[in-house]
Every structure is written in C-alpha cells, then in structure tokens.
C-alpha cells in the first residue's frame, strides 16, 4: 500500500542550528510541544499511523497510508481555513502555529515533501468553527414537587399538576441521594440542553439539590454564566459568587460537585481550585475537590 508522510522539522532555535544530538532546553521544549501537537492531531484522525523522530535538524514525522495522511492534512487545512469544528485539531494546530510564528525558531512543515509552514504562519488565529446545528446549554434553577425518581436510565420528575411535569436526567448516585427528598418541594440546579430551532427538543440534566436559601444566589449565578462566553468575565463571576456568598463552603461545594456542567475552560476549573483551597479538608468539599484535581490534571496534560 502506498504510504505518505507529514513532517515537522525544527532547523534553528535562537539562530543556532538544531541537532537532535545536542539540543538546548528551549529548542527541546518547543520541539516536544510541536511534536506532541502533531501526534494529537494525527491520532484524532486515525489510529493506524506511526511516528518517527530523526536527525538532521530535529524532525518529527507521522506516516501512514496515503488515505490516512491525506485525511490528516485535510483536517489541518480545514482548520487553517477556519472551517474546522474539531477542538483537538484546532487547539493543537494553534499550538503549532504559535511555535511556527515565534521568530526564535525556524520550522518547516512538510506534506508530501511540499512545505506548508507559510500557510500556517499566515493563517489567522486558528479557532474552532461553531457548527450550525448545535445545541445550547444553559444553567437554570427548577423548583417543584418532587414525587418520583428511578428507572434504568434514571431520571426524576417535578410535577406541576394538571399533567404538567418536567423530567430531569440524573445518574444512579444522584438518584440514590435524591430519594431522601421524595414528596417534598425542592429546588435543583440543572443544565438545560436545547436546540434553538426546536424548543420541544429540550433535555434537563441534574446538577445538584440546593436549599431554599441558596436559590437566589444560584439563580443569579446561572443567569450571569449563561450570558457570557468571555473567559475573563466568567472567572470574575466565580469570584463574585464567592464574594457575595453567605455560606461560602456550602455554596462552593455545589460548584465543585457539578463543575463539569458549569465550566468549560481549564482556567475556570483552576479558579474554582483556588477558591476552595482553604477548605480542602472540609468534609463538604474534600472528596469532590480531590476528584476535581484529578480531572484538572488530566485536562492540563491533554490541552
């Protein structure tokens, strides 16, 4: 079968010729970052590929069947043109772009022996394209009479009478925890997933049960978070939340327990860790925070 390859070659760092036998710290750091990004991109397209690192400057190559390598290249080109909706390809290509653009390094990026580093250098900042038919996610607080929980794919209901009810998806540990609230009026922080084109296509996911006195701060927090995608503004909201909280350990413990529904960016998770550091041994927070740290570390190594 015909094979093909994509290569990244680091030729110079800080005006010195790079040699795999003898690399400076900064050349190695850059080369490893770029090689890792190339691995992530290629690995997300096909698992049936191989890599090599070889001398003559510092050269990392991914090789495989012609189809696979053309696919990898296609995904890269799509991202260069701002047409990619793939997070792995765009974030890793952005990392490669950063190094190619840095004047300290001189890189070559070759596909089928043709250079295309200029294309990457000159591309606008590579970002993920938002797909058209996407779902929107919002946080909200629901209050109601809670009269049923269970099922193989567990869920629970808020019954509003006259046949009106809302179904909320949850997992088994949550279902077990929720049982103690049966036949009571309760409030829950939930994630609402819906399609803007079709209001009937809405699903709710359970985040946490909140107490009556917490509904106000969580309603406001949910509204505020829904209203902005700007990372700095969202971090500010987290700080405001803890600053205005009247029972900060209890309120923060809820954010820690359902961080995966609330936050997307690693910096939001880091801020949550900063905010809860002094309570890390508090029984309300301890176990959940340790889980969050593990997840945080996995994410740090992935990006």
């Amino acid at each position: 079968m015909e094979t093909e390859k994509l290569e990244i070659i680091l030729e110079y760092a800080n005006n010195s010729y790079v040699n795999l036998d003898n690399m400076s710290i900064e050349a190695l750091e850059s080369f490893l970052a770029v090689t890792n990004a190339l691995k992530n991109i290629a690995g997300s397209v096909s698992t049936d590929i191989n890599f090599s690192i070889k001398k003559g400057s510092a050269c990392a190559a991914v090789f495989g069947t012609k189809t696979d390598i053309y696919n990898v290249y296609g995904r890269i080109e799509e991202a260069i043109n701002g047409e990619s909706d793939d997070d792995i390809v765009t974030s890793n290509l952005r990392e490669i772009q950063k190094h190619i653009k840095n004047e300290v390094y001189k890189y070559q990026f070759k596909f089928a022996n043709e250079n295309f580093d200029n294309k990457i250098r000159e591309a606008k900042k590579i970002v993920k394209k938002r797909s058209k038919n996407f779902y929107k996610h919002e946080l909200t607080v629901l209050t109601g009479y809670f009269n049923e929980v269970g099922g193989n794919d567990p869920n629970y209901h808020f019954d509003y009478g006259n046949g009106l009810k809302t179904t909320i998806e949850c997992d088994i540990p949550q279902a077990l925890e929720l049982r103690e609230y049966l036949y009571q009026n309760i409030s829950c922080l939930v994630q609402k997933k819906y399609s803007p084109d079709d209001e009937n296509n809405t699903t709710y996911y359970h985040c946490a049960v909140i107490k009556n006195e917490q509904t106000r701060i969580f309603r406001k927090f949910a509204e505020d978070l829904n209203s902005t995608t700007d990372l700095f503004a969202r971090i500010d909201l987290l700080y405001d939340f803890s600053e205005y909280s009247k029972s900060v350990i209890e309120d923060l413990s809820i954010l820690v327990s359902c961080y995966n529904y609330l936050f997307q960016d690693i910096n939001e998770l880091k801020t949550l860790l900063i905010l809860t550091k002094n309570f890390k041994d508090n029984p309300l927070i301890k176990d959940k925070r340790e889980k969050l740290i593990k997840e945080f570390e996995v994410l740090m190594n992935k990006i």
Partner: protein
Amino acid sequence: MFEIIKTISEQDIKDEFVAIGAYVSDSRIPQFSNGTPYHSLIIIKYQDELFQFHYTGDPTLGILLDNSIDSNCFHKITDTIDIKLIPAFIMMCKRILKNANPKYGYFYSGEFYDIDGTHFSDKAIGERMTCSGFCLNVLKGFLEDDYIVYTDWDSSTHQLENYLQDFCNIRGLNINEIEISHRRISPLELLSSGYYSNIPITKEQVDSKIGSVEDYLKNY
C-alpha cells in the same frame, strides 16, 4: 546569563509567561551598589502585553498592576505556573489588587492570598510583608502547595539591630508571637528561585543559584 532576561529590552523565549522579576540598581539608585536586585515583583506577559504586579511597600501606592515596568527590570520565567493558566492567574491578581491591604515588614511565615484576594494567616503577624513576601503570598495563593520552604530561612536572614524589638514596641505586639514570622527572603533569592519548578523550593536550591545570578547582574 541564559534565561534571565532584561524585561523591557530583551525578547524572552516564550510568548506568554509568568516570571519572577526584580528591579536592579544602577546609577539612579545610589543606596545600593550597581547590579543589586532591590525590589521583587511578578512579571506577566499575555497576548503581547507585559504587566508587572507588585507591592510597592508605600502606604499610599500599595499594590500595583500596570505596564510601567522599570527599564532596569530583569526576570526569570517560573515554570511553576503553566502558561495555559495565565488568565486565571491574572484574574487572581486583580482580586488581590482589589481586596488586599498589606503593610510593610520583614515577615513571612507561610501566609497566602486566599479566596477573593483576602489574606490568610494563621499567625499573629497577619498581612505584614516585604515586596518579596508579597510575591510569595501571591504564588502560594495560586499554587496547590507551598512555593518555598520558608522555614529554611530563619531570623538571622534579617540582621537589623533591634528590628523585631522596636517593631513590637511601637505597635504594642507580643514579641513571642511575632518572632516566628521574622525573616527576610531577598529579591535576589526570589529571582534565583525562578530556576526551579518542583515546589516547594528549598534554600539550598536557591543558594546554589545565587552566585551566578549575582555575577550576571553585576556584570550586565
């Protein structure tokens, strides 16, 4: 020396970073010999913009987060703060700027800036620190663990006659409660700590870098 960068005029190897900075004396600062680091600060570069974050020690200026970095500032990138987390770091600095209220003194005993930029101390000394101590409070606030093994420094690192006694007398403080916090971690030592990424950093590690950092700055 490799990796210590003159902040304004030299280009660092990374586009974005958090670094330990130091203002270094030249002919404008006659009270120190040329090439002495006399003020500690944190340098941040994010999206092509350089910031300094520091405690001036001046009661009216307090803490500053701005771009007016001195021309004779040097820095060393610290790998203890991942560049992916610079937005979270900047936002923490902004909260500290808003809520912190440090006072000057040669003390540090593991304090840090906590939730919302308010200060956390389990010692009697409270929010009392030098410019280097401020940087340590900030770094510890951001990191999961201690940045430095502060107990490696004892009160002999700050030998100003009767400092502790006078400090306590003026403020009516109990010297027995305060002396545990008395120490000086200097701007030169803090700058040298920038070479280490495994925390907490020991005095022995710092000491092994001081000579070459000092030589580099004197001969710059």
